[in-house]
Protein backbone atom coordinates (compact mmCIF):
# COMPACT_ATOMS: atom_id res chain seq x y z
CA UNK A 1 0.00 0.00 0.00
CA UNK A 2 1.66 3.21 -1.14
CA UNK A 3 0.68 6.69 -0.29
CA UNK A 4 1.02 9.34 -2.94
CA UNK A 5 2.05 12.74 -1.67
CA UNK A 6 0.00 15.53 -3.10
CA UNK A 7 1.14 19.16 -3.03
CA UNK A 8 -1.58 19.88 -0.51
CA UNK A 9 -0.31 17.09 1.68
CA UNK A 10 -1.19 17.75 5.27
CA UNK A 11 0.81 17.26 8.42
CA UNK A 12 0.34 13.54 8.09
CA UNK A 13 2.98 13.27 5.42
CA UNK A 14 5.54 14.52 7.89
CA UNK A 15 5.68 11.10 9.44
CA UNK A 16 6.24 9.21 6.20
CA UNK A 17 9.76 8.05 5.49
CA UNK A 18 11.28 10.26 2.82
CA UNK A 19 9.24 13.32 3.80
CA UNK A 20 11.09 14.41 6.92
CA UNK A 21 9.70 17.90 7.51
CA UNK A 22 6.27 19.45 7.36
CA UNK A 23 5.81 22.77 5.57
CA UNK A 24 5.42 24.43 8.96
CA UNK A 25 8.77 23.08 10.17
CA UNK A 26 10.54 24.12 6.98
CA UNK A 27 9.18 27.63 7.33
CA UNK A 28 10.21 27.76 11.00
CA UNK A 29 13.69 26.62 10.04
CA UNK A 30 13.94 29.29 7.35
CA UNK A 31 12.85 31.92 9.88
CA UNK A 32 15.41 30.70 12.42
CA UNK A 33 18.11 31.17 9.76
CA UNK A 34 16.75 34.54 8.69
CA UNK A 35 17.02 36.07 12.18
CA UNK A 36 20.86 35.86 12.34
CA UNK A 37 21.13 37.06 8.73
CA UNK A 38 18.99 40.06 9.64
CA UNK A 39 21.02 40.89 12.70
CA UNK A 40 24.23 40.85 10.64
CA UNK A 41 22.59 42.91 7.91
CA UNK A 42 21.41 45.72 10.19
CA UNK A 43 24.08 47.91 11.69
CA UNK A 44 21.88 50.18 13.75
CA UNK A 45 21.89 48.89 17.33
CA UNK A 46 18.29 50.00 17.84
CA UNK A 47 17.16 47.76 15.01
CA UNK A 48 19.22 44.92 16.46
CA UNK A 49 17.38 45.27 19.76
CA UNK A 50 14.01 45.34 17.97
CA UNK A 51 14.98 42.06 16.34
CA UNK A 52 15.81 40.53 19.71
CA UNK A 53 12.52 41.77 21.15
CA UNK A 54 10.59 40.26 18.27
CA UNK A 55 12.23 36.90 18.99
CA UNK A 56 11.32 37.21 22.68
CA UNK A 57 7.73 37.96 21.71
CA UNK A 58 7.78 35.05 19.27
CA UNK A 59 8.41 32.61 22.13
CA UNK A 60 5.30 33.84 23.95
CA UNK A 61 3.31 33.85 20.71
CA UNK A 62 4.28 30.25 20.01
CA UNK A 63 2.94 29.36 23.47
CA UNK A 64 -0.36 31.13 22.83
CA UNK A 65 -0.57 29.54 19.38
CA UNK A 66 -0.52 26.10 20.99
CA UNK A 67 -3.24 27.13 23.43
CA UNK A 68 -5.54 29.07 21.15
CA UNK A 69 -4.82 27.58 17.76
CA UNK A 70 -4.31 23.94 18.61
CA UNK A 71 -6.39 23.35 21.71
CA UNK A 72 -8.94 26.13 21.23
CA UNK A 73 -8.32 27.40 24.76
CA UNK A 74 -8.56 31.16 24.51
CA UNK A 75 -6.50 33.23 26.94
CA UNK A 76 -6.68 37.00 27.24
CA UNK A 77 -4.43 36.93 30.28
CA UNK A 78 -1.07 35.81 28.90
CA UNK A 79 0.60 39.00 30.11
CA UNK A 80 0.25 37.56 33.62
CA UNK A 81 2.60 34.68 32.75
CA UNK A 82 4.93 37.06 30.96
CA UNK A 83 5.07 39.18 34.10
CA UNK A 84 5.49 36.18 36.38
CA UNK A 85 8.45 35.04 34.30
CA UNK A 86 10.04 38.47 34.40
CA UNK A 87 9.49 39.20 38.10
CA UNK A 88 10.45 35.77 39.40
CA UNK A 89 13.60 35.92 37.29
CA UNK A 90 14.48 39.38 38.59
CA UNK A 91 13.66 38.49 42.18
CA UNK A 92 15.76 35.32 42.23
CA UNK A 93 18.66 36.97 40.42
CA UNK A 94 18.67 39.98 42.75
CA UNK A 95 17.97 38.25 46.06
CA UNK A 96 19.97 35.07 45.67
CA UNK A 97 22.43 36.03 42.95
CA UNK A 98 21.87 32.81 41.10
CA UNK A 99 22.99 32.19 37.54
CA UNK A 100 20.71 34.30 35.26
CA UNK A 101 19.89 31.35 33.00
CA UNK A 102 18.75 29.42 36.07
CA UNK A 103 16.67 32.36 37.25
CA UNK A 104 14.96 32.50 33.86
CA UNK A 105 14.30 28.76 33.98
CA UNK A 106 12.86 29.12 37.47
CA UNK A 107 10.63 31.99 36.31
CA UNK A 108 9.33 29.86 33.46
CA UNK A 109 8.75 26.98 35.86
CA UNK A 110 6.74 29.18 38.23
CA UNK A 111 4.64 30.47 35.33
CA UNK A 112 4.09 26.91 34.16
CA UNK A 113 3.01 25.75 37.60
CA UNK A 114 0.48 28.55 37.90
CA UNK A 115 -0.76 27.96 34.35
CA UNK A 116 -1.24 24.30 35.14
CA UNK A 117 -2.94 25.15 38.42
CA UNK A 118 -5.52 27.50 36.92
CA UNK A 119 -6.20 25.25 33.94
CA UNK A 120 -7.98 22.59 35.94
CA UNK A 121 -10.87 24.78 37.06
CA UNK A 122 -10.84 27.09 34.03
CA UNK A 123 -10.88 24.52 31.27
CA UNK A 124 -14.37 23.39 32.22
CA UNK A 125 -15.75 26.78 31.21
CA UNK A 126 -17.50 27.61 27.96
CA UNK A 127 -15.27 29.59 25.55
CA UNK A 128 -16.90 32.96 26.27
CA UNK A 129 -16.58 32.45 30.03
CA UNK A 130 -13.03 31.16 29.68
CA UNK A 131 -12.10 34.31 27.78
CA UNK A 132 -13.61 36.49 30.55
CA UNK A 133 -11.99 34.41 33.28
CA UNK A 134 -8.51 34.64 31.74
CA UNK A 135 -9.03 38.35 31.22
CA UNK A 136 -9.94 38.69 34.91
CA UNK A 137 -6.92 36.60 35.87
CA UNK A 138 -4.69 38.85 33.76
CA UNK A 139 -6.05 42.01 35.38
CA UNK A 140 -5.77 40.56 38.90
CA UNK A 141 -2.13 39.69 38.27
CA UNK A 142 -1.53 43.14 36.82
CA UNK A 143 -3.01 44.76 39.92
CA UNK A 144 -0.75 42.53 41.99
CA UNK A 145 2.34 43.45 39.95
CA UNK A 146 1.51 47.15 40.24
CA UNK A 147 0.84 47.08 43.98
CA UNK A 148 3.08 44.40 45.51
CA UNK A 149 5.96 46.81 45.45
CA UNK A 150 8.12 44.89 47.89
CA UNK A 151 8.33 42.10 45.37
CA UNK A 152 7.94 43.84 42.01
CA UNK A 153 8.78 47.50 42.52
CA UNK A 154 5.31 48.32 41.17
CA UNK A 155 4.97 51.01 38.53
CA UNK A 156 7.68 53.13 40.11
CA UNK A 157 10.60 52.47 40.52
CA UNK A 158 9.96 49.09 38.94
CA UNK A 159 12.39 46.19 38.86
CA UNK A 160 15.86 45.90 37.44
CA UNK A 161 18.44 43.17 36.92
CA UNK A 162 22.20 42.95 36.53
CA UNK A 163 23.89 42.07 33.25
CA UNK A 164 23.19 38.68 31.72
CA UNK A 165 26.15 36.44 32.55
CA UNK A 166 26.48 32.83 31.55
CA UNK A 167 29.14 30.69 33.29
CA UNK A 168 31.15 33.83 33.91
CA UNK A 169 30.86 35.20 30.36
CA UNK A 170 29.20 38.54 29.88
CA UNK A 171 26.53 38.02 27.23
CA UNK A 172 24.64 41.22 27.93
CA UNK A 173 25.56 43.18 24.81
CA UNK A 174 22.78 43.09 22.21
CA UNK A 175 25.03 41.16 19.77
CA UNK A 176 25.60 38.41 22.30
CA UNK A 177 22.20 38.44 23.94
CA UNK A 178 20.77 37.90 20.46
CA UNK A 179 22.25 34.41 20.49
CA UNK A 180 20.87 33.65 23.95
CA UNK A 181 17.37 34.51 22.76
CA UNK A 182 17.96 32.74 19.45
CA UNK A 183 18.80 29.51 21.24
CA UNK A 184 15.73 29.86 23.50
CA UNK A 185 13.48 30.52 20.51
CA UNK A 186 15.05 27.63 18.62
CA UNK A 187 14.36 25.22 21.47
CA UNK A 188 10.80 26.52 21.86
CA UNK A 189 10.12 26.16 18.16
CA UNK A 190 11.61 22.68 18.16
CA UNK A 191 9.44 21.51 21.04
CA UNK A 192 6.33 23.23 19.66
CA UNK A 193 7.03 21.69 16.26
CA UNK A 194 7.34 18.28 17.88
CA UNK A 195 4.00 18.81 19.57
CA UNK A 196 2.45 19.92 16.29
CA UNK A 197 3.64 16.91 14.35
CA UNK A 198 2.97 14.12 16.82
CA UNK A 199 0.04 12.57 18.61
CA UNK A 200 0.10 15.34 21.24
CA UNK A 201 -0.70 18.10 18.76
CA UNK A 202 -3.26 15.94 17.04
CA UNK A 203 -4.95 15.28 20.38
CA UNK A 204 -5.05 19.01 21.11
CA UNK A 205 -6.67 19.66 17.74
CA UNK A 206 -9.10 16.82 18.36
CA UNK A 207 -10.08 18.34 21.71
CA UNK A 208 -10.76 21.64 19.94
CA UNK A 209 -12.80 20.12 17.10
CA UNK A 210 -14.85 17.72 19.21
CA UNK A 211 -14.07 17.13 22.84
CA UNK A 212 -16.67 14.33 22.99
CA UNK A 213 -15.20 12.43 20.07
CA UNK A 214 -11.69 12.92 21.42
CA UNK A 215 -12.73 11.50 24.79
CA UNK A 216 -14.53 8.60 23.13
CA UNK A 217 -11.34 7.45 21.42
CA UNK A 218 -9.34 7.63 24.62
CA UNK A 219 -8.02 11.18 24.86
CA UNK A 220 -7.95 12.43 28.44
CA UNK A 221 -9.45 15.83 27.64
CA UNK A 222 -8.84 17.39 31.05
CA UNK A 223 -5.20 16.32 31.01
CA UNK A 224 -4.62 17.67 27.50
CA UNK A 225 -6.11 21.03 28.45
CA UNK A 226 -3.97 21.19 31.58
CA UNK A 227 -0.94 20.30 29.49
CA UNK A 228 -1.55 23.04 26.94
CA UNK A 229 -2.14 25.65 29.64
CA UNK A 230 1.10 24.58 31.28
CA UNK A 231 3.16 24.67 28.10
CA UNK A 232 1.60 27.98 27.04
CA UNK A 233 2.42 29.50 30.42
CA UNK A 234 5.91 27.96 30.38
CA UNK A 235 6.82 29.50 27.03
CA UNK A 236 5.28 32.86 27.96
CA UNK A 237 7.12 32.79 31.30
CA UNK A 238 10.38 31.97 29.53
CA UNK A 239 9.74 34.88 27.22
CA UNK A 240 9.14 37.12 30.25
CA UNK A 241 12.41 36.04 31.88
CA UNK A 242 14.32 36.79 28.69
CA UNK A 243 12.56 40.14 28.52
CA UNK A 244 13.79 40.98 32.03
CA UNK A 245 17.42 40.68 30.88
CA UNK A 246 16.61 42.38 27.61
CA UNK A 247 15.08 45.46 29.20
CA UNK A 248 17.28 45.31 32.35
CA UNK A 249 14.81 47.64 34.01
CA UNK A 250 11.04 47.46 33.64
CA UNK A 251 7.82 48.21 35.48
CA UNK A 252 4.35 46.72 35.86
CA UNK A 253 3.02 48.80 32.95
CA UNK A 254 4.53 46.26 30.54
CA UNK A 255 2.31 43.47 31.83
CA UNK A 256 -1.17 44.93 31.33
CA UNK A 257 -4.04 43.77 29.12
CA UNK A 258 -2.38 45.56 26.22
CA UNK A 259 0.36 42.96 26.00
CA UNK A 260 -2.13 40.10 26.18
CA UNK A 261 -3.99 41.60 23.24
CA UNK A 262 -0.76 42.14 21.30
CA UNK A 263 0.04 38.45 21.76
CA UNK A 264 -3.41 37.54 20.43
CA UNK A 265 -2.73 39.82 17.47
CA UNK A 266 0.54 38.03 16.77
CA UNK A 267 -1.16 34.64 16.63
CA UNK A 268 -4.10 35.94 14.61
CA UNK A 269 -1.84 37.72 12.13
CA UNK A 270 0.17 34.57 11.60
CA UNK A 271 -1.67 31.32 11.83
CA UNK A 272 -3.71 29.60 14.45
CA UNK A 273 -2.33 26.19 13.58
CA UNK A 274 1.24 26.80 12.45
CA UNK A 275 4.12 27.49 14.77
CA UNK A 276 5.90 29.43 12.03
CA UNK A 277 2.85 31.69 11.73
CA UNK A 278 3.24 32.82 15.33
CA UNK A 279 6.86 33.80 14.65
CA UNK A 280 5.88 35.81 11.58
CA UNK A 281 3.06 37.46 13.55
CA UNK A 282 5.38 38.34 16.44
CA UNK A 283 7.90 39.83 14.03
CA UNK A 284 5.28 41.98 12.27
CA UNK A 285 3.67 43.28 15.47
CA UNK A 286 7.05 44.08 17.03
CA UNK A 287 8.51 45.96 14.08
CA UNK A 288 5.38 47.89 13.06
CA UNK A 289 6.00 50.75 15.51
CA UNK A 290 9.57 50.97 14.22
CA UNK A 291 8.63 51.02 10.55
CA UNK A 292 5.89 53.59 10.95
CA UNK A 293 6.91 56.46 13.16
CA UNK A 294 3.40 57.66 13.84
CA UNK A 295 2.25 54.12 14.53
CA UNK A 296 2.04 54.42 18.31
CA UNK A 297 -0.87 56.86 18.01
CA UNK A 298 -2.86 54.63 15.68
CA UNK A 299 -1.73 51.29 17.09
CA UNK A 300 -4.91 50.56 19.03
CA UNK A 301 -7.18 51.46 16.14
CA UNK A 302 -5.18 49.51 13.56
CA UNK A 303 -4.91 46.44 15.80
CA UNK A 304 -8.64 46.50 16.49
CA UNK A 305 -9.72 46.80 12.88
CA UNK A 306 -7.21 44.16 11.80
CA UNK A 307 -8.38 41.71 14.43
CA UNK A 308 -12.04 42.13 13.44
CA UNK A 309 -11.31 41.75 9.74
CA UNK A 310 -9.10 38.69 10.14
CA UNK A 311 -11.39 36.87 12.56
CA UNK A 312 -14.43 37.64 10.42
CA UNK A 313 -12.99 36.70 7.07
CA UNK A 314 -10.01 34.43 7.81
CA UNK A 315 -10.66 32.87 11.21
CA UNK A 316 -7.66 30.55 10.84
CA UNK A 317 -5.23 33.47 10.73
CA UNK A 318 -4.06 35.91 8.07
CA UNK A 319 -0.89 34.21 6.82
CA UNK A 320 -2.66 30.87 7.09
CA UNK A 321 -5.62 32.17 5.11
CA UNK A 322 -3.39 33.57 2.38
CA UNK A 323 -1.35 30.35 2.27
CA UNK A 324 -4.37 28.08 1.97
CA UNK A 325 -5.85 30.40 -0.67
CA UNK A 326 -2.61 30.06 -2.64
CA UNK A 327 -2.60 26.31 -2.09
CA UNK A 328 -6.11 26.05 -3.46
CA UNK A 329 -5.23 28.14 -6.52
CA UNK A 330 -2.15 26.00 -7.10
CA UNK A 331 -4.14 22.79 -6.85
CA UNK A 332 -6.78 24.23 -9.17
CA UNK A 333 -4.12 24.84 -11.81
CA UNK A 334 -2.71 21.35 -11.60
CA UNK A 335 -6.02 19.58 -11.93
Amino acid sequence: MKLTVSPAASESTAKRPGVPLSADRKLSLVLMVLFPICTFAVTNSFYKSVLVLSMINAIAAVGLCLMLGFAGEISIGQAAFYGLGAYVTAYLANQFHIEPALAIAAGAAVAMTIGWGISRPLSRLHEHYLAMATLAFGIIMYIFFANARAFTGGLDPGASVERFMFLGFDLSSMERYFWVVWVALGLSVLVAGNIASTQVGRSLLAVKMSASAAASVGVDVVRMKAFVFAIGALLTGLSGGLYAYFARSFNAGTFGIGYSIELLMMVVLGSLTRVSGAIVGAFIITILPVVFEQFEDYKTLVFGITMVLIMKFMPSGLVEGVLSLGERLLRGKRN
Partner: protein
Amino acid sequence: MFQQVVISGITVGAIYALIAIGFTIVFSTVRVVNFAHGEFVMVGGLLYAWLTIVQQIPLALAIPLAIAACVVVAWLSYELCLAGMNKDNHIAQVMVTLGLGVTIKGLAQVFIGKDTQFPPSFSSGSPLMLGSMSISQQSIWIVGSLAVLLGLLWAVMQKTRIGKGMRAVAINHYAAVLMGISPKRAAIIAFVFAGLIGGAAGALLSPVASAHYDNGMFLGIKGFAAAILGGLGHPIGALVGGLILGLVESLTAGYLSSAYKDAVSLVLLLAILLFRPQGLLGRALPNKL
Protein backbone atom coordinates in the same frame (compact mmCIF):
# COMPACT_ATOMS: atom_id res chain seq x y z
CA MET B 1 -18.22 56.41 57.61
CA PHE B 2 -20.14 53.17 57.14
CA GLN B 3 -23.21 54.93 55.81
CA GLN B 4 -21.13 56.94 53.37
CA VAL B 5 -19.45 53.74 52.18
CA VAL B 6 -22.84 52.15 51.61
CA ILE B 7 -24.09 55.15 49.64
CA SER B 8 -21.07 55.11 47.39
CA GLY B 9 -21.44 51.35 47.03
CA ILE B 10 -25.04 51.72 45.90
CA THR B 11 -24.10 54.46 43.45
CA VAL B 12 -21.32 52.45 41.85
CA GLY B 13 -23.46 49.32 42.07
CA ALA B 14 -26.24 51.03 40.12
CA ILE B 15 -23.74 51.81 37.36
CA TYR B 16 -22.53 48.20 37.32
CA ALA B 17 -26.14 47.05 37.15
CA LEU B 18 -26.74 49.28 34.11
CA ILE B 19 -23.65 47.85 32.39
CA ALA B 20 -24.66 44.33 33.36
CA ILE B 21 -28.08 44.73 31.75
CA GLY B 22 -26.34 45.30 28.40
CA PHE B 23 -24.42 42.04 28.74
CA THR B 24 -27.58 40.24 29.74
CA ILE B 25 -29.74 41.49 26.85
CA VAL B 26 -27.10 40.72 24.25
CA PHE B 27 -26.22 37.35 25.71
CA SER B 28 -29.81 36.17 25.93
CA THR B 29 -30.69 37.12 22.35
CA VAL B 30 -27.40 36.64 20.46
CA ARG B 31 -25.64 34.10 22.75
CA VAL B 32 -22.49 36.15 22.68
CA VAL B 33 -20.54 37.66 25.55
CA ASN B 34 -19.84 41.05 24.04
CA PHE B 35 -16.28 42.02 24.92
CA ALA B 36 -16.85 45.43 23.35
CA HIS B 37 -19.69 46.31 25.72
CA GLY B 38 -17.45 48.20 28.13
CA GLU B 39 -16.37 50.41 25.25
CA PHE B 40 -19.99 51.46 24.66
CA VAL B 41 -19.97 52.70 28.25
CA MET B 42 -16.64 54.44 27.75
CA VAL B 43 -17.95 56.16 24.59
CA GLY B 44 -21.02 57.39 26.47
CA GLY B 45 -18.90 58.97 29.19
CA LEU B 46 -16.17 60.33 26.95
CA LEU B 47 -18.57 61.84 24.42
CA TYR B 48 -20.61 63.46 27.15
CA ALA B 49 -17.42 64.94 28.56
CA TRP B 50 -16.15 66.06 25.17
CA LEU B 51 -19.48 67.62 24.18
CA THR B 52 -19.83 69.56 27.42
CA ILE B 53 -16.20 70.55 28.00
CA VAL B 54 -14.69 70.93 24.53
CA GLN B 55 -17.76 71.74 22.44
CA GLN B 56 -19.49 73.69 25.23
CA ILE B 57 -22.84 72.15 24.36
CA PRO B 58 -25.51 72.49 27.05
CA LEU B 59 -26.11 69.46 29.26
CA ALA B 60 -29.68 68.90 28.16
CA LEU B 61 -28.45 68.39 24.62
CA ALA B 62 -25.12 66.71 25.35
CA ILE B 63 -26.62 63.84 27.32
CA PRO B 64 -29.04 62.64 24.63
CA LEU B 65 -26.42 63.22 21.92
CA ALA B 66 -23.84 61.08 23.71
CA ILE B 67 -26.36 58.32 24.30
CA ALA B 68 -27.60 58.47 20.71
CA ALA B 69 -24.01 58.12 19.48
CA CYS B 70 -23.64 55.01 21.64
CA VAL B 71 -26.77 53.52 20.13
CA VAL B 72 -25.33 54.08 16.67
CA VAL B 73 -21.99 52.55 17.70
CA ALA B 74 -23.77 49.52 19.15
CA TRP B 75 -25.97 49.07 16.09
CA LEU B 76 -22.98 49.35 13.73
CA SER B 77 -21.08 46.93 15.92
CA TYR B 78 -23.64 44.25 15.30
CA GLU B 79 -24.31 45.10 11.67
CA LEU B 80 -20.66 45.28 10.60
CA CYS B 81 -19.03 42.74 12.86
CA LEU B 82 -21.27 40.08 14.30
CA ALA B 83 -24.05 39.73 11.75
CA GLY B 84 -23.58 36.67 9.58
CA MET B 85 -20.83 35.11 11.68
CA ASN B 86 -20.67 31.39 12.29
CA LYS B 87 -22.55 30.85 15.55
CA ASP B 88 -20.51 27.78 16.49
CA ASN B 89 -17.09 29.36 16.18
CA HIS B 90 -17.02 30.76 19.69
CA ILE B 91 -13.35 31.68 19.53
CA ALA B 92 -13.93 33.82 16.45
CA GLN B 93 -16.90 35.48 18.21
CA VAL B 94 -14.81 36.31 21.24
CA MET B 95 -11.96 37.61 19.10
CA VAL B 96 -14.27 39.70 16.90
CA THR B 97 -15.96 41.43 19.82
CA LEU B 98 -12.58 41.86 21.48
CA GLY B 99 -11.20 43.39 18.27
CA LEU B 100 -14.29 45.55 18.05
CA GLY B 101 -13.68 46.84 21.55
CA VAL B 102 -10.07 47.65 20.68
CA THR B 103 -11.29 49.42 17.52
CA ILE B 104 -13.75 51.60 19.44
CA LYS B 105 -11.07 52.43 21.98
CA GLY B 106 -8.68 53.30 19.13
CA LEU B 107 -11.28 55.55 17.51
CA ALA B 108 -11.86 57.36 20.80
CA GLN B 109 -8.12 57.80 21.26
CA VAL B 110 -7.58 59.15 17.75
CA PHE B 111 -10.63 61.41 17.50
CA ILE B 112 -11.18 62.58 21.07
CA GLY B 113 -7.76 62.19 22.62
CA LYS B 114 -5.93 60.65 25.51
CA ASP B 115 -6.75 63.28 28.14
CA THR B 116 -8.74 62.38 31.19
CA GLN B 117 -11.88 64.53 31.24
CA PHE B 118 -13.87 65.71 34.24
CA PRO B 119 -17.35 66.62 32.97
CA PRO B 120 -19.93 68.43 35.09
CA SER B 121 -22.63 66.70 37.13
CA PHE B 122 -26.08 66.53 35.57
CA SER B 123 -27.31 69.08 38.03
CA SER B 124 -25.33 71.41 40.21
CA GLY B 125 -26.39 72.00 43.75
CA SER B 126 -25.51 70.99 47.24
CA PRO B 127 -25.68 67.34 48.24
CA LEU B 128 -28.83 66.04 49.82
CA MET B 129 -28.45 65.65 53.58
CA LEU B 130 -30.17 62.73 55.27
CA GLY B 131 -29.26 62.95 58.92
CA SER B 132 -25.48 62.74 58.90
CA MET B 133 -25.35 61.24 55.41
CA SER B 134 -24.67 63.35 52.38
CA ILE B 135 -25.87 62.10 49.02
CA SER B 136 -24.49 63.85 45.97
CA GLN B 137 -26.92 64.99 43.30
CA GLN B 138 -25.23 62.78 40.72
CA SER B 139 -25.83 59.73 42.92
CA ILE B 140 -29.52 60.52 42.84
CA TRP B 141 -29.41 60.88 39.07
CA ILE B 142 -27.69 57.52 38.81
CA VAL B 143 -30.06 55.59 41.02
CA GLY B 144 -33.06 57.37 39.51
CA SER B 145 -31.93 56.57 35.97
CA LEU B 146 -31.44 52.93 36.90
CA ALA B 147 -35.02 52.79 38.13
CA VAL B 148 -36.39 54.56 35.05
CA LEU B 149 -34.38 52.49 32.57
CA LEU B 150 -35.24 49.22 34.29
CA GLY B 151 -38.92 50.22 34.22
CA LEU B 152 -38.68 51.14 30.55
CA LEU B 153 -36.95 47.86 29.72
CA TRP B 154 -39.55 45.90 31.64
CA ALA B 155 -42.38 47.68 29.86
CA VAL B 156 -40.85 47.03 26.44
CA MET B 157 -40.17 43.39 27.19
CA GLN B 158 -43.58 42.66 28.66
CA LYS B 159 -45.92 44.88 26.71
CA THR B 160 -44.67 45.38 23.18
CA ARG B 161 -44.62 42.92 20.30
CA ILE B 162 -40.88 43.52 19.82
CA GLY B 163 -40.18 42.75 23.45
CA LYS B 164 -42.22 39.59 23.40
CA GLY B 165 -40.42 38.55 20.25
CA MET B 166 -37.06 39.12 21.88
CA ARG B 167 -38.04 36.99 24.82
CA ALA B 168 -39.12 34.29 22.40
CA VAL B 169 -35.76 34.45 20.63
CA ALA B 170 -34.00 34.16 23.95
CA ILE B 171 -35.89 31.00 24.78
CA ASN B 172 -35.85 29.29 21.42
CA HIS B 173 -34.57 30.60 18.09
CA TYR B 174 -36.56 28.09 16.09
CA ALA B 175 -39.84 28.84 17.81
CA ALA B 176 -39.22 32.53 17.34
CA VAL B 177 -38.77 32.07 13.60
CA LEU B 178 -42.04 30.17 13.50
CA MET B 179 -43.73 33.08 15.26
CA GLY B 180 -42.45 35.35 12.54
CA ILE B 181 -39.73 37.06 14.54
CA SER B 182 -36.41 37.38 12.85
CA PRO B 183 -33.48 36.59 15.14
CA LYS B 184 -31.48 39.20 13.28
CA ARG B 185 -34.00 41.92 14.10
CA ALA B 186 -34.06 40.81 17.72
CA ALA B 187 -30.26 40.94 17.75
CA ILE B 188 -30.22 44.49 16.41
CA ILE B 189 -32.73 45.60 19.03
CA ALA B 190 -30.69 43.89 21.74
CA PHE B 191 -27.59 45.79 20.66
CA VAL B 192 -29.51 49.06 20.43
CA PHE B 193 -30.72 48.57 24.00
CA ALA B 194 -27.22 47.65 25.14
CA GLY B 195 -25.89 50.82 23.50
CA LEU B 196 -28.64 52.96 25.02
CA ILE B 197 -28.28 51.69 28.57
CA GLY B 198 -24.49 51.38 28.32
CA GLY B 199 -24.15 54.92 26.95
CA ALA B 200 -26.40 56.24 29.70
CA ALA B 201 -24.30 54.42 32.30
CA GLY B 202 -21.15 55.99 30.87
CA ALA B 203 -22.58 59.50 30.86
CA LEU B 204 -23.94 59.08 34.40
CA LEU B 205 -20.64 57.75 35.72
CA SER B 206 -18.30 60.25 34.11
CA PRO B 207 -18.95 63.19 36.49
CA VAL B 208 -18.20 60.88 39.43
CA ALA B 209 -15.27 58.89 38.05
CA SER B 210 -13.99 61.01 35.10
CA ALA B 211 -13.82 59.82 31.50
CA HIS B 212 -10.86 58.31 29.72
CA TYR B 213 -10.52 56.35 26.47
CA ASP B 214 -8.75 53.48 28.25
CA ASN B 215 -11.53 52.80 30.80
CA GLY B 216 -13.81 50.62 28.70
CA MET B 217 -12.32 47.19 29.30
CA PHE B 218 -12.35 47.77 33.04
CA LEU B 219 -15.94 48.98 33.12
CA GLY B 220 -16.87 46.08 30.87
CA ILE B 221 -15.38 43.39 33.04
CA LYS B 222 -16.99 44.88 36.14
CA GLY B 223 -20.35 44.94 34.40
CA PHE B 224 -19.83 41.38 33.29
CA ALA B 225 -18.93 40.41 36.84
CA ALA B 226 -22.20 41.93 38.01
CA ALA B 227 -24.14 40.15 35.27
CA ILE B 228 -22.59 36.77 36.02
CA LEU B 229 -22.97 37.31 39.77
CA GLY B 230 -26.72 37.70 39.42
CA GLY B 231 -27.00 35.17 36.61
CA LEU B 232 -26.39 36.05 32.97
CA GLY B 233 -29.75 36.38 31.27
CA HIS B 234 -31.68 37.81 34.23
CA PRO B 235 -32.35 41.59 34.25
CA ILE B 236 -33.13 41.32 37.97
CA GLY B 237 -29.94 39.32 38.39
CA ALA B 238 -28.04 42.21 36.83
CA LEU B 239 -29.55 44.58 39.40
CA VAL B 240 -28.77 42.31 42.35
CA GLY B 241 -25.29 41.50 41.03
CA GLY B 242 -24.49 45.14 40.38
CA LEU B 243 -25.49 46.24 43.87
CA ILE B 244 -23.59 43.40 45.57
CA LEU B 245 -20.49 44.13 43.53
CA GLY B 246 -20.72 47.87 44.21
CA LEU B 247 -21.08 47.30 47.94
CA VAL B 248 -18.24 44.75 48.08
CA GLU B 249 -15.97 47.15 46.23
CA SER B 250 -16.77 50.15 48.29
CA LEU B 251 -16.48 48.20 51.55
CA THR B 252 -13.10 46.87 50.42
CA ALA B 253 -11.93 50.33 49.46
CA GLY B 254 -13.24 51.81 52.69
CA TYR B 255 -11.96 49.25 55.18
CA LEU B 256 -9.25 47.13 53.52
CA SER B 257 -7.32 48.60 50.67
CA SER B 258 -8.29 50.85 47.79
CA ALA B 259 -5.45 49.47 45.67
CA TYR B 260 -6.93 45.98 45.73
CA LYS B 261 -10.63 46.85 45.47
CA ASP B 262 -10.70 45.95 41.76
CA ALA B 263 -8.81 42.76 42.41
CA VAL B 264 -11.39 41.76 45.01
CA SER B 265 -14.29 42.14 42.60
CA LEU B 266 -12.42 40.22 39.90
CA VAL B 267 -11.64 37.42 42.33
CA LEU B 268 -15.37 37.38 43.07
CA LEU B 269 -15.99 37.07 39.32
CA LEU B 270 -13.59 34.14 39.05
CA ALA B 271 -15.12 32.43 42.05
CA ILE B 272 -18.62 32.75 40.60
CA LEU B 273 -17.48 31.50 37.19
CA LEU B 274 -15.84 28.49 38.75
CA PHE B 275 -18.32 27.53 41.41
CA ARG B 276 -21.67 28.88 40.32
CA PRO B 277 -21.51 29.90 36.65
CA GLN B 278 -25.28 30.17 36.49
CA GLY B 279 -25.09 33.03 39.02
CA LEU B 280 -26.90 33.54 42.29
CA LEU B 281 -30.34 33.65 40.69
CA GLY B 282 -29.82 31.38 37.71
CA ARG B 283 -30.62 27.75 37.13
CA ALA B 284 -27.89 25.17 36.63
CA LEU B 285 -26.42 24.97 33.14
CA PRO B 286 -25.40 21.74 31.49
CA ASN B 287 -21.73 21.14 32.10
CA LYS B 288 -19.08 21.02 29.47
CA LEU B 289 -16.86 17.97 29.36
